[in-house]
């Protein structure tokens, strides 16, 4: 049985070059499906990755209760004091809480490619910024100084928007702000933002309160005690979340939408590709009717014939899948784009063609091949031997 199968399969594959046109239909059709599927899903993987990388389990974000997002939230100076003294908050050498009180606002900056205005986040950050977010490093220029109108820009924002390189001047609310440096931050969401001193931002926006407090905890395990202390404190009405869960919630809606769209389009395309595969394999089987009948006449079984057709289709689909995933990887892996994130502001992220996505693509390719090859294979196996031989 195995010997027969090998013999037929090798024979089939040898004749492939003669059927190049029909076989390439399977390869190209499936490559198209996989390329589209993998590229679209690479967007959602990349977006989720950017937001998932924003935050550490031992960091917490405190917002006014019921606000959902930093942009809507408002905390007073008294709130910040209470939060600073809560249990579980890490303390620096001088015994001060490692906390950044922040103001989040969005400003209009033109996009680099289209020149149309986009909202980007201007985040006022507290003096302990670098202790709260040690992953933040300057890659160009210098840190902003407090009390003067200076900002530093994330690398993502610098690449996607105009006029944010070191030394540029931004005109915001009737005043000029100088970009003094560019920072990177582990590829997280803050790389899409502008950072400046919180008090300077507050006075420019005529805001007395803050949007959020970002707190470094003594350990990830200290979160529950910290949260309980704040939510039971009668002086406060706040929501306390671990940073990763806050940002994961922000990515939820968009990644779900992209996944639905990507999968739907790919399913529809896969149906089309399957019809193509069926077509090619039916004609391949028809063209080889005589060969198959001869093989059956000299004692080859029906199942090796069936399996050999399936194997041929699978191999073609596999090639298609690899080509498709390869195309997606070549053109889109690491491709930087930006979109409107959950908080009314642009999030810059890179498309990520991960190994898991490539595997997904190839699994899809094999499924299409299996479905497209099965019925032609069945016809080949059921071919009435005598009739086929007589047709000569």
């Amino acid at each position, binding site marked *: 049985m195995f010997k027969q199968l090998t013999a037929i399969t090798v024979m089939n594959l040898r004749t492939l070059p003669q059927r190049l*046109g*029909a076989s*390439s*239909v399977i390869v*190209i*059709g499936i*490559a*198209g*499906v996989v*390329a*589209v599927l993998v*590229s*679209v899903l690479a967007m959602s993987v990349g977006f989720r990755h950017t937001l998932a990388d924003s935050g550490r389990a031992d960091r917490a974000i405190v917002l*006014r*209760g*019921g*606000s*959902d*997002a930093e*942009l*809507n939230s*408002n905390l007073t100076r008294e709130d910040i004091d209470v939060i600073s003294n809560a249990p579980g908050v890490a303390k620096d050498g001088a015994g001060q809480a490692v906390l950044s009180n922040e103001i989040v*606002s*969005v*400003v*209009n900056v033109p*996009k680099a*490619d*289209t020149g*149309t*205005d*986009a*909202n980007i986040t201007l985040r006022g950050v507290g003096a302990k910024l670098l202790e709260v977010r040690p992953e933040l490093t300057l890659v160009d220029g210098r840190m902003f100084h407090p009390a003067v109108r200076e900002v530093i820009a994330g690398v993502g924002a610098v690449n996607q928007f105009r006029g944010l390189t070191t030394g540029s001047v931004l005109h*915001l*609310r*009737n005043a000029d702000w100088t970009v003094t440096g560019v920072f990177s931050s582990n590829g997280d969401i803050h790389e899409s933002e502008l950072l400046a001193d919180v008090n300077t931002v507050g006075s420019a*926006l*005529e805001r007395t309160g803050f949007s959020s407090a970002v707190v470094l905890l003594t350990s990830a395990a200290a979160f529950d005690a910290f949260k309980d202390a704040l939510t039971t404190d009668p002086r406060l*009405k706040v929501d306390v979340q671990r940073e990763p869960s806050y940002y994961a919630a922000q990515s939820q809606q968009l990644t779900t*939408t992209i996944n*639905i769209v990507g999968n739907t*389009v790919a399913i*529809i*395309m896969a*149906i*089309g*590709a399957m*019809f*193509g595969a*069926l*077509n*090619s394999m*039916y*004609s391949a089987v028809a063209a080889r009717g005589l060969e198959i009948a001869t093989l059956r006449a000299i004692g080859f079984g029906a199942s090796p014939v069936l399996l050999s057709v399936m194997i041929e289709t699978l191999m073609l689909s596999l090639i298609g899948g690899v080509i498709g995933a390869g195309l997606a990887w070549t053109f889109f892996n690491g491709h930087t*784009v*930006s*979109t*409107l994130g959950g908080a*009314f502001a*642009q999030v810059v992220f890179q498309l990520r063609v991960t190994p898991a996505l490539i595997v997904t693509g190839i699994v899809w390719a094999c499924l299409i091949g299996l479905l497209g090859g099965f019925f032609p294979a069945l016809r080949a196996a059921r071919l009435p031997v005598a009739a086929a031989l007589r047709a000569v």
Partner: protein
Amino acid sequence: MKYFPLIWATLWRRKTRTILTLLSIVVAFLLFGVLETVDYAFAHPGAGGAGADKLITTNKYSITLSLPFSYTQQIRTVPGVAAVTWISWFGAYYQESKNFVFALPIDTESYFQLHQDEFIVSDADMHAFETTRTGALVNTALMQKFGWKVGGKVPLHSTIWTQKNGALDWTFDIVGTFSVKDKTQQGAQSSTLLFHYEMFDEGRSFGKGNVGWFEERVSDPLQSAAIGSRIDSLFANSSNETKTQPAKDFALAFIKQLGDIGFIIRAILGAVFFTLLFLTGNTMMQSVRERIPELAVLKTLGFSNPQVLGLVLSESLLLCLLAAVAGLALSYTVLPIVKEAGLQGLELSAAALAPGIGVAVLLSLIVGLPPALRAMRLNIVDGLAGKR
């Protein structure tokens, strides 16, 4: 036309093959129809009855920054401005954050003066709204979505605005319903709830005296750009500079922020049609190759070379058009599902489907021409002998 039966017969010479090819083209045009419609919807947003005579004035530096209410008087004095109204972003949801409600605090008189003839509200409902301080007018689609009843009370959670007692929940009395006249705007307005600006401004604990944005109607749409810059010049160099633009542009700019949706759609359709070319091209080639002796017989009977070319091309055209029309029709029937699946607020229009026919003709020419030329150049003797 008299050759139609002949073309029809040759098309169905191999039933399985033709059906499978037809189905793949149908699938491609189904995708074409849906994606093009979505693209069209993104490129032509329905921005709350945004006619050419509507302008919108926002804070120049950020849409999240507010503007002083006192600007109303100054904007009103600009020549050419027929009506001004002011609105704020309320950021509301009902019970759960996924149940977004586009709740708008409006100044009743100026809002309806500006958007005259855009809403259908019965006189009784309008009277009830005007006389109830906590009243709300709700789009009929939103009423159905949540099963609300006129006369009921509905609590909405604002993610921004606290009341004086610190609560984020605001309760409204549903006093009536409205629908929009322009059916293409129905999608954009489907989650709108209108309530009184006075109630909002008196109730909120901060931000009093500031508004989110202004909307203007101009008497001459051709002058709207000039009027816009006149409005902006009023507030130049103040701490709240403004940016006035046609409401349509405002909506477009917002959609553009989502990313280059047009590019993504064109890339996907490019991949779809590239693979389709191979598939259909291969089918046409095969079918002509198998029919070489028959084509030679046609020529023997006196069919001229151009006629044979025409026959093969017509076959290709018939195949593509048949499938394209079926695919586009199918996409039209699934559009409501697409809309349900998360594109509410975008009005999907059939106008985007028309180019599909052009694409089908183009496709049929590309895939039909090589085999048709081959058929035309066919030598009768070789063909009859079965030589290729």
